[in-house]
């Protein structure tokens, strides 16, 4: 018995020491990384000043300039997303497949992989590490990070492997790709504030600028939810006749939005419009209205341009939705990464406004809904910055 206890104690002490040693190393790493980052930042700043004249907006991939050696090397594309239960991500993947068709057309060898984090930060980073271990410096990655906080970890992992990364939507306020490292090539985001503002204006105009509205917010604390709400509030200031009757979060979720709107409707049955921070919640709001026989008479707006909501816009049941143009977000991000990977762009020369920018969105109204649904987008991936908003 006593021997067992001694062994246990010895083991515990050893483990404790190991943990301490591990921490010290990690701390040293972090410091070193921070120093390197700072150096990179200084480098980047110098280069930007030097190349300010080049017309980057019209940069075009010329396939004849890509060396045969590169074309024969397999480039590994990874799409890292939160989970495929959201139709938005399916559209992202569809867009990426359009881009791989482009790679086929120029004779580039490639392999495409989906990394599904299931909403977990750990899984997201582990997936990324495993993928990088296999693909190494030939990896180009489009990551829709779970949270802003995971982005630096992803960028560091990518740097360690010498691969290239494009992020979308979330990034920490104070960390951008041009200041961080040369491997985190671009960060793009659809302009949530514009989306929130334009859908709100469309809603208020459909109400004749007067009446009460419900506000169904996205997940509290989420960057997209906050920005969209800011856009809504901007629009609200322009319409003094509009009054907010009820406001709350439905966590991006259809069922929760249904419950919320159902309850609000009993307190405010004569509401004029419902602004929702995304289309999944607009689906729930519309269903609550339908159950009361109010569909079409009370205006609803969403953001994201989900299929069912675009259909409802076409049928006049929903006033407007806003497309962040998911087809373009993933595919054009890869086009930029590919241009860098193929050696057509020296990352140092790319000015910061082409490494961190808003992408073009589309306001879908009754007038253009049919057009939006009917046409599968036809992108020219050689013009890699076509998805950048002005």
């Amino acid at each position, binding site marked *: 018995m006593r021997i067992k206890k001694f062994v246990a104690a010895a083991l515990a002490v050893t483990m404790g020491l190991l943990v301490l040693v591990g921490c010290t190393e990690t701390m040293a790493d972090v410091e070193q990384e921070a120093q390197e980052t700072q150096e990179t930042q200084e480098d980047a700043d110098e280069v930007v000043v030097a190349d300010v004249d080049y017309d980057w907006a019209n940069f075009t991939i010329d396939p004849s300039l890509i060396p045969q050696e590169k074309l024969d090397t397999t480039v590994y594309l990874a799409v890292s997303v939160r989970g*495929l*239960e*959201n*139709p938005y*991500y*399916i559209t992202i993947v569809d867009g990426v497949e359009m881009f791989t068709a482009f790679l086929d057309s120029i004779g580039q060898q490639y392999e495409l992989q989906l990394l599904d984090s299931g909403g977990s930060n750990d899984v997201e980073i582990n997936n990324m590490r495993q993928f990088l271990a296999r693909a190494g410096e030939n990896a180009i990655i489009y990551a829709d990070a779970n949270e802003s906080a995971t982005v630096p970890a992803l960028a560091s992992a990518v740097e360690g492997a010498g691969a290239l990364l494009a992020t979308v939507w979330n990034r920490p306020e104070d960390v951008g790709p041009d200041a961080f490292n040369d491997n985190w090539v671009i960060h793009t985001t659809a302009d949530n504030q514009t989306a929130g503002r334009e859908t709100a204006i469309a809603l208020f105009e459909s109400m004749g600028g007067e009446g009460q509205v419900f506000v169904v*917010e996205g997940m*509290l604390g989420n960057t997209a939810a906050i920005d969209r709400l800011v856009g809504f509030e901007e629009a609200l200031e322009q319409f003094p006749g509009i009054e907010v009757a*009820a*406001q*709350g*979060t439905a*966590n991006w*979720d*259809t*069922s*929760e939005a*249904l*419950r*919320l709107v*159902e*309850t*609000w*409707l*009993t*307190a405010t*049955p004569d509401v004029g419009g419902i602004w929702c921070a995304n289309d*999944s919640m607009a*689906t*729930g709001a519309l*269903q609550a209205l*339908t*159950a009361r*026989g109010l569909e079409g008479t009370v205006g609803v707006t969403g953001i994201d341009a*989900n*299929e*069912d909501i675009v*259909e409802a816009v076409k049928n006049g049941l929903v006033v407007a939705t806003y497309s962040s143009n998911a087809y373009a977000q993933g595919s054009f991000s890869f086009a930029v990464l590919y241009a860098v990977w193929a050696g057509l762009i020296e990352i140092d020369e790319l000015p910061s406004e082409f490494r961190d920018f808003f992408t073009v969105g589309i306001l879908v109204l009754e007038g253009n809904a049919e057009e939006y649904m009917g046409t599968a987008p036809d992108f020219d991936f050689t013009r890699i910055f076509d998805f950048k908003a002005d």
Partner: protein
Amino acid sequence: MAKVKQTQMTITEEFAAKVKLEYKREKLMKWAPVLVLVGMIVIFAIQLGAAFISPLNIVSILNQWSIPLIVALGLTFVIMIGSIDLSIDGSVGMTGSIAAVLVLNSQNSNNLGVWGLVIAILCGVFVGFIIGLIHVKLKIPSFMVSFAFMNICAGIGLLSYGGRPPTIQDEWLVALPRASFIGIPVLVWIAIFIMFICLYIQECTPFGRHIYAVGTDETIPRSVGINVDRVKVMVFTLAGFCFGVAGVVGAIRLGQGQIAIGTNLMFPAQAAVVIGGTSLSGGKGGVVNTIVGTLIMTVLFNGLTMMNVSGNVKNGIQGVIILVAVALTVKRGAAIISK
């Protein structure tokens, strides 16, 4: 001789008095959830006035009550045998998705009508049966098996519609959320129907009594020749049936099939069952407790939403009420643990 007899009498009397006292205390505890519910209704009615008790709001409370009720009913029996079922989010989402994919919808050419719904519910039944079977035969704790199935079902649900949620287009299914019978929505009637089935099972069938027996101490029913394993598998199957129905009702209510129908149903359901007074250690509680528990959760959400309480505060208040309700019923749990 006489002295001994007297002592015996005293012991019997003492015992009787103790039983009486415990019975009294238990009775008080039994009514605690109901008191919480009534108290909440009174407070909301004072705060919100006529709007809260208007027929429109009562209908919306009933609407919001239906799915959590069906889910919690299935879960009640599982908890009564001292097990747990964590598969809810997945299995409810899966059956809802399958139902929407099989009836006339926007994503494919299927049009099975009612049969689509039946098949979807049977999928739920099957999942419940498999969970029970694995739990009993492979002797794996139920929370592990059901947790695994939560993920499996979520995966199947997602695959069934390939990421693009199908909108239900079958005319009578589209009309169903609006339909009502004597002022109460048809979907609520479905929940009430399930409620009576569960009540009947619990009160009037040998299976119902076996559930209590297994939950209290499984060696006793085993020693009198009851097939305990069979009872357990049947309980999980019944739960699967309830989750299947909840998924189908959820899909009809949303007019759309998506895995999110089941999202965030599990913990509120567990909370509702426990708030109602069903003990997590098994053997106590039942359907009526769950009815009260789910009503507490629904009325609370509805009232706070009507008062326009902000999301963060709402979560906090919900937590506090759950704590209070459980604290009021906790003595009963302590008695069981000390046994």
